[in-house]
């Protein structure tokens, strides 16, 4: 018996044949698990970066950039649009192969993908694609899209972001529900292994049309505990790590040897939505008092100068249509108190708020809570876990809703989801209009079909002004994304922005 045991042990201990040294990139993410990696479903911070490694759009955001201005050809080599801006023709790159044995990418796949993105049964972004009248394959390498109305940012809809990612029709149809965990795209990397709650492993796509990736394997690890993740990066077990969006974190890691900390766009805008139908916030003066009581500079100060900036409008800065000079209420406690008194609350008001227990959001809310208290506004937080929070704010139960979000960088999306009456919570078309804001519907709708870019911007500006003036919401601060990497990691581009919220690993990315 003993002898057998010994033999077995020897077998087990025998060095596992080390093949040629693979280049493995270890990425640490602040999440317990992946959310969705079906590109048309992926919305959370941990999902978006990996989608960008696996998929292409007709066009793509320039790696390292989050700007709509910098779109470049991806699966489409060229495109043209009709004079009325309603018809777009895309000419596809030839010989692009899907991962594995799923064959060549053709116009049929593009049509399928865009239609899939526009179907609410398969996509979370269906609303964005409702503008497409028809999508058809003219020939295997040509796609024609006809719009119901001209929109300025159509290229954004066919970029490698959200619904613009192109999936394999054959794979999606054959795999059915399993496609959710084994999506098939054309990107430089493909999923090879998923260990739930632990990691996702990607292998290089040897047939990638831009060339064989220099990295052989990416291990994307889910490490929800901040301290554990940081320690793993410090000990060298991670090459790239998701950073905490906080000044001290940036400072600490900037001092570590062989470490580069990168603070990148887009910014997530934190807004306090005030429920205009609920007492006492149904009184505009009370809402104004809240607006005066908030000290945006101080919040940004707490969050740290290098990662947070005070908000400038109810739409994040840098979006197409953001009013960079919007007139926000200044910080003025005396005024706030006066307004409260005027509204009949000389002794202050109490606002019941449902608040998520998610630390970053809760921490920010605590600062707001303390600021409002100085003006006699008592925010009574009912802290619930994040999912309960999401469910309950959508049931219109909270007096105020603290919400942080980044969206597709066009003012329309933000305004439409948060401040258009159609999106009001409690209605069938509800999205995230927690304040029951309806003052700018006209401008938002008009801007959406306004072909003239300048006029459109004006409409958006008016809309923002109206929302601000009516105090549907009090914008607080904007939070940039923070990532750190070891110096031996070379992304292959300058990492300044990440529409995907994380670094895009391309064929050029390397680890020396």
């Amino acid at each position, binding site marked *: 018996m003993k002898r057998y045991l010994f033999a077995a042990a020897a077998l087990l201990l025998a060095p596992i044949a080390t093949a040629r040294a693979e280049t493995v990139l270890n990425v640490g993410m602040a999440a317990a698990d992946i959310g969705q990696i079906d590109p048309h479903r992926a919305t959370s911070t941990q999902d978006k970066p990996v989608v960008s490694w696996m998929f292409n759009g007709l066009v793509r955001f320039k790696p390292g950039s989050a700007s709509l201005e910098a779109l470049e050809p991806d699966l489409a080599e060229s495109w043209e649009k009709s004079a009325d801006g309603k018809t777009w023709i895309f000419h596809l790159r030839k010989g692009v192969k899907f991962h594995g044995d799923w064959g060549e990418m053709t116009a049929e796949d593009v049509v399928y993908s865009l239609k899939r993105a526009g179907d609410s049964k398969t996509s979370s972004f269906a609303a964005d694609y409702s503008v497409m009248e028809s999508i058809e394959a003219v020939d295997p390498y040509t796609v024609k899209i006809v719009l119901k109305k001209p929109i300025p940012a159509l290229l954004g809809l066919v970029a490698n972001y959200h619904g613009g990612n192109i999936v394999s029709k054959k794979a999606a149809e054959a795999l059915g529900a399993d496609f959710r965990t084994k999506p098939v795209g054309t990107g430089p990397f493909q999923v090879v292994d998923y260990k739930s709650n632990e990691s996702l492993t990607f292998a290089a796509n040897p047939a990638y049309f831009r060339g064989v990736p220099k990295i052989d394997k990416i291990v994307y690890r889910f490490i929800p*505990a*901040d*301290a554990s993740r*940081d*320690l793993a990066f410090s000990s060298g077990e991670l090459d790239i790590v998701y950073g905490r969006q906080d000044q*001290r*974190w940036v400072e*600490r890691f900037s001092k570590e040897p062989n470490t580069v900390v990168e603070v990148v766009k887009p910014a997530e805008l934190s807004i306090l939505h005030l429920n205009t139908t609920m007492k006492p916030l149904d009184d505009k003066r009370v809402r104004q008092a809240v607006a005066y009581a908030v000290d945006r500079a*101080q919040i940004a*100060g*707490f969050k740290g100068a290098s990662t947070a900036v005070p908000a400038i409008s109810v739409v994040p800065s840098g979006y197409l249509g953001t009013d960079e000079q919007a007139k926000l209420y200044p910080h003025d406690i005396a005024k706030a108190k006066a307004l409260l008194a005027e509204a009949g609350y000389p002794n202050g008001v109490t606002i019941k708020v449902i*608040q998520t*227990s*998610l*630390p970053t959001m*809760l*921490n920010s*809310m*605590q*600062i707001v*809570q*303390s600021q409002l208290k100085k003006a006699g506004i008592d925010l*009574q*937080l*009912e*802290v*619930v*876990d*994040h999912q*309960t929070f999401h469910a309950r704010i959508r049931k219109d139960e909270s007096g105020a809703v603290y919400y942080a979000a980044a969206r597709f960088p066009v003012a329309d999306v933000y305004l439409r989801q948060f401040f258009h009456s159609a999106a009001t919570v409690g209605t069938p078309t509800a999205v995230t209009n927690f304040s029951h804001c309806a003052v700018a519907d006209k401008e938002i709708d008009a801007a959406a079909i306004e072909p003239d870019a300048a006029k459109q911007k004006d409409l958006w500006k008016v809309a923002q002004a109206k929302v601000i003036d009516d105090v549907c919401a009090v914008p607080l601060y904007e939070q940039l994304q923070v990532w750190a990497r070891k110096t031996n990691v070379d992304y292959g581009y300058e990492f300044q922005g990440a529409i995907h919220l994380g670094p895009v690993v391309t064929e050029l990315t390397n680890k020396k």
Partner: protein
Amino acid sequence: MSASSSARRNTVASRALRSPGLAFGFVVVVVMIVAALIAPWASPFDPDAQDVMLVLSPPDTTHLFGTDAFGRDVFSRILWGARISLTVGFLATAVGVVIGTVIGVVAGYYGGVIDRLVVAATDVLLSFPQLIMGLLLVAVLGASLTNLVIAIAVTAVPAFVRLARGSTLAMRERDFVDACRSLGYSDLRIMFLHVLPNILDELVVMASLWLAAAIRTESTLAFIGLSVPPPTATWGGIVREGFDNLLDGPWLAVFPSLAILAVMIGLNLIGDGLRDASDPRAPQ
């Protein structure tokens, strides 16, 4: 032997007083309770006052235990946190003990169908990992002081049912229950005026241990994300915030942990002391 007659006089109370561990534990717990009571006057700063200039500053003479990520004084927060944490601990344990004991004594005393049902019910409750059960309950009820107390109490109930039932069964073996019955006492009188006082020792010992566990559970629930809403300070909440900033400000986790440690040691010493004191067979 004359020694034994003298040992008879060795009451639990007098023996307890002679145990240094128990006395020490008692002092520690009393100090903590006093600290909680005098927090409004004793704490040098407003526990909720934020100061952007003082974020995560290490301990110094002004801020004995340093400041947290909002620039709040950790020492003051620990003092104030003692109120909540001790309240949660004491209340949750008290509720758990009272409910568990009543059920356990009744089940143990009557036996039969009632007993089997009670045992089955505790089996069911004990089939869930305690912490997960607590977490689910808080998720269902919502995080508030009251709900936290309820959730922790519910996890304590089955343990006390088991203990009270077991002790009651043991008591029933003793003649005095029969003596009471032969004197025509009602069942209620026997259970709560005769059996209960005699099993109280063991219950108190276990309660002291559970008290400590309840305080720790509070911190654990805070870690997973559900505890008393901010800005209210609780020890668990501070530890949890400390964990977020462990690499930037370790004091933030260490001091409340030490406070928890002190209470745990205090309570456990009291528990041990009581147990030893109530065991007449333990050598002196």
